[in-house]
């Protein structure tokens, strides 16, 4: 699956919430701050919980039980799992940050940490 196809395919509302939270967090960050955050291993997801709660408010409660299956499916089927999917999203949504993550030492690991934080918040909220 190419990069251009990422924005086209819909992987589920839970996965889409991760994308929205990631985009929202990066919108308030400059490239310099991103590089500094990567080098300092600082988190940008301070408000992830509130955002997840906001986005999940549009989903009926009975459907939230499907979130785990959506993440599992992406983890099994998508190349690189959820982290690879987030990287491809960034290539479409934030090409500058995507390039910086690629060219900054420890960028991928930092991104995995951010994704993990989002998933943890999501798991707490949907539990």
């Amino acid at each position, binding site marked *: 699956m190419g990069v251009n196809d990422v924005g086209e395919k819909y992987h589920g509302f839970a996965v889409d919430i991760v994308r929205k939270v990631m985009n929202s967090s990066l919108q308030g960050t*400059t*490239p*310099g701050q991103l*590089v500094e955050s990567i080098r300092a291993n600082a988190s940008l997801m301070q408000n992830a919980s509130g955002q997840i709660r906001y986005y999940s408010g549009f989903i009926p409660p009975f459907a939230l039980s499907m979130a785990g299956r959506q993440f599992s499916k992406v983890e099994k089927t998508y190349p690189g799992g959820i982290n690879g999917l987030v990287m491809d999203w960034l*290539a479409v949504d934030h*090409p*500058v940050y*995507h*390039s*910086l993550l*690629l*060219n*900054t030492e420890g960028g991928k690991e930092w991104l995995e940490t951010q994704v993990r934080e989002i998933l943890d918040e999501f798991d707490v909220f949907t539990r």
Partner: protein
Amino acid sequence: MTVELTCMNGHTFEVTPDMVGVVASGTSFKATCPECNAPAAITHAKVIEVMGLKDNNEARELKKKMAAELREKGVVPKVKSKPKTKVESVKTTVIDEEPDEPDEIEEEEEDSDMTSGDPYSPATGTPWTDASVPFAHRPINAPPPRPTMPPTPAITPRRHAPIDVMGTVGSAKDRNTILRETIEATNLPDATKDRIRKFIGLKPEGLSPHELYSALTYLGVANAPALAVVRSYEFDLSLQQQEVEQERQLYTLLGVPMPEPDRPTSPDYSRGQFPFMQQSAGVAPSPNMAQNPFLTPTSRPSGGGSPGQGENGRAGNKEPQIDIATLLPLAMQNPQLFQMLVSNPQLMQAVAQNPMMLFQMMQMTQGNQTAQAQQAQNGGVSREEVRALISNEMAELKKILTEASGNPRENALAEELRQNRQFMLEIMKGQLAANNNAGRQRDPLAEQQGEILKTLLHNTLDRSNNDGTGVILGALEELKKNQNGLGSGSQSIEGMNLFLRYQELANQMEETRSRFQDEREKRESLKDIVNTAAGTIGETIAGVIQQSVPGLPNASGASGAPGNRPEALGGSLRPRPVQDVEEEAEEYDAPTAPPQSPPAAPPGVNTLACLDCGAPIYVPSDATSATCPKCKKKFGINRTPPPEVPGGAPDGTASPPVDEDVEF
């Protein structure tokens, strides 16, 4: 001896031997008209005379010879797939006295679409009678006709199904009457009209549009006029059907069973899906009279009561009487109208003469009831509605009177009908006036609505103090007045339209204002950007001048503030490394296309262009390698040492931007 023929276009010409030929099928002779080249059928006897032949055998031989010549010339005979049942049956009964007639029939069969057995031959212009039909007499030796093949005209399959739009109500005119009227209204030649009339007269069961089209085509009428005539005929038929349907509805409303028309006992109604009212019994009775369910059979008028018009005629001028028992279903449905009829014998007499009048009265009373119901809901009927209602009723009554006066058989009753209808009109006017007066009484709830609307209006205007408030205020005030009026429906509608128009204008103004505001914000933001960029560029130029001109104090060393260092100003203000990359690519003779100019880098980030695909690569300022996010190719970044700048900072932090080389 001269032989004269008449072609289908009416030209009479003398036949010479060179005019004689055979038809394309080779089954019969023809002669070509010298004026219009139209073929005309010629009998064997005439051919014998013209060509000087001995007998029919020689004529047949000549016909075969001519047909063979035609085939040699490449004329393809017309072969039709319709069955030859009639021709075969005819051949078994042909006698030798006049053997040329069956050939003509064959040509008729193949050159026309009319159903076989039509008793009129348009080609010869002479109607077929029993005496002229040669095969009416069976020879002694001939076998008896088979029971499965009756001597009746064979039924050839139709190309199109006949269009039958006639209803079954007896009041309808028969098809032939409608067709005669239609034909009279056309611009067809008189000869064609006469022939069609004769043809109609010989088809008592009626002529379908398909048959009419076939006959017109056979008579030489072009396709378009023939179609026009057929369409007109169909239209008249459909009009008739609609009238019949209206009458059917009337009977349904009255609960009276539909009367069957007085049909003659016709021997053959196999094709008659439509009624046929015999026209030969003198003047046909009026449809309304014949179908009036309130008339007793002995009291039907018959147009003056002249003798010789049957039982109805002997009844004389006795006025038609209505049976009260027949109005009982009406009493159940509409007691008001029933009471009106019972109390007014003249009105009942008018209804007896014209049942449609009763239908109109029912509609009027229902309209009154509906108007009363609307009045109860809306609080009144506007003057325009009352005026329109009265004018409609007047128009209807005038129309009925015109129709009644146009019929000479009802002239005697016209005056009486007019009086009755005027009486009804007076009743209607009185009722409508009463309704109108009742509608003028004001509803207290409506007055409260006006107050509420006024309060809402002022509150709304207090909240929104914009430019169009005065106009909208006027419109709303007008609307409020109309709400209070309760009698001027048209003014309310106009006021509402005015209000809506002004509301639309206000919305457009608001939209325009918001657009102007957005543009102003954009201009202000652009101005801020320009001011910031100008200040930054000025500082940068000042720093470069300070560093490049010897003798000046080292501004960067003196200040030491990172904000004044060009490196700290961000990659967008540094010399664009892409220029160096291009130069290096030229030096190393890079095989790829020159990289595209990357966009300006954000602060703290350098921008490179991929030497392979040209995609922009964003790297941190101190990165030593770069990976293209598009093609995933990795590059190394060589940082050349800064040139010796007198007075420059030894640590390089104050040096000009580093040049970057990209290695493959």
